[in-house]
């Protein structure tokens, strides 16, 4: 891929893509991008270059699109860097593109973005949707914030509180990614300005509580909540970023512009 004089499209490659096994895939993606006229600057993450500085460099030079090349973790890190920087220093909101490579690409899947070369065609179509983001203290999440139910209490805008009496997991969902974080038959909308609090518990039943387990599911729609944990467990954002409790979680309506596919799940 060559460098354009004015860099319009920026591709941020996650560090795991430096492994040899991705060479062919990346070459195919780069060829496809060139064919579509979407060639631009490649910024490779590594020991010497972290996400924040990579994104800041590209925002400075006036990138038209920043595309995360990698998996859910890559996408989530790019979003956090973009949102923090646009809030603090670069007010112009530019769209996020995604080219999923490797495993764990649930975000791309739910945004209707196919893997590898097919994702380039979606970038070319440039179908932009504004998506909500969850905010936990100073961090952001696109998919969910999760914490164990052990020791967890949830308070809703000082009107009521929720206690969980059995083992399980608490998920605050914006964009549903897997069956684990929400009921399989449910549809959530990441554009409605509302987060869904989903609690799944497992209650042991029978003699000595060994014979069977009963699953309980609870769901609440909300805009703001506080999570406390008496056992000092942390909240995990988008499956990778740890945030300590107590924490306030809120939704920021349509904060992120993302290039999505027509087969998106909302």
């Amino acid at each position, binding site marked *: 891929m060559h460098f354009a004089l004015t860099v319009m499209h920026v591709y941020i490659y996650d560090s795991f893509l430096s492994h040899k096994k991705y060479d062919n895939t990346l070459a195919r993606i780069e060829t496809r991008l060139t064919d579509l006229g979407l060639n631009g600057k490649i910024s490779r993450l590594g020991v010497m270059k972290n996400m924040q500085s990579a994104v800041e460099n590209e925002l400075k030079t006036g990138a038209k699109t920043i595309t995360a090349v990698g998996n859910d973790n890559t996408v989530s890190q790019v979003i956090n860097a973009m949102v923090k920087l646009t809030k603090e220093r670069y007010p112009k909101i530019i769209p996020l593109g995604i080219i999923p490579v490797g495993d764990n690409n649930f975000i791309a899947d739910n945004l209707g973005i196919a893997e590898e070369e097919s994702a380039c065609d979606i970038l070319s179509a440039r179908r932009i949707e504004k998506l909500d983001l969850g905010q936990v203290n100073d961090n952001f999440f696109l998919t969910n914030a999760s914490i164990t139910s052990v020791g967890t209490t949830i308070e809703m805008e000082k009107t*009521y509180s929720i206690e969980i009496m059995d083992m399980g997991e608490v998920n605050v969902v914006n964009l549903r990614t897997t069956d684990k974080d929400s009921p399989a038959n449910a549809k959530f909308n990441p554009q409605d300005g509302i987060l869904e609090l989903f609690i799944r518990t497992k209650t042991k039943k029978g003699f000595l509580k060994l014979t069977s387990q009963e699953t309980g599911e609870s769901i609440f729609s909300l805009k703001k909540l506080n999570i406390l944990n008496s056992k000092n467990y942390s909240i995990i954002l988008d499956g990778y970023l740890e945030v300590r409790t107590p924490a306030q979680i809120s939704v920021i309506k349509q904060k992120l512009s993302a290039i999505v596919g027509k087969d998106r799940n909302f």
Partner: protein
Amino acid sequence: MFNAQEEKGGLKEVETIIGPSVKVKGNFHGQGNIVIEGILEGSLKTQSSLHIGDKAKVTANVEAKGATISGEVVGNIKIKGYLDVGPTAKITGDIEASSLSIARGAILNGKCAMSPGEGVSKEIK
């Protein structure tokens, strides 16, 4: 809103489900349909329908547009439309509804008043 494709508590679109193993304390006021299978203490209001499951325990004054009750309620219940009290229901408190059915086996300790409202009850079980 959470759109369940399969019906939960007879309700197609459910905004809130308070499942078993979950206890809600405080004033719970919602706009959409609510299903309760767990514990609620405080007050409960919704502008839509309410389903209280057979294992649920509600200690609260309840207001809703319509309701089906199969669990335990301690508190006064005020329903604008139709209230369906199932055979496993145990209610300690006054009830008010514009249409009402009470199944055989249900326990009701309290006054019962009919208010002019949306529906007319014809059903007697």
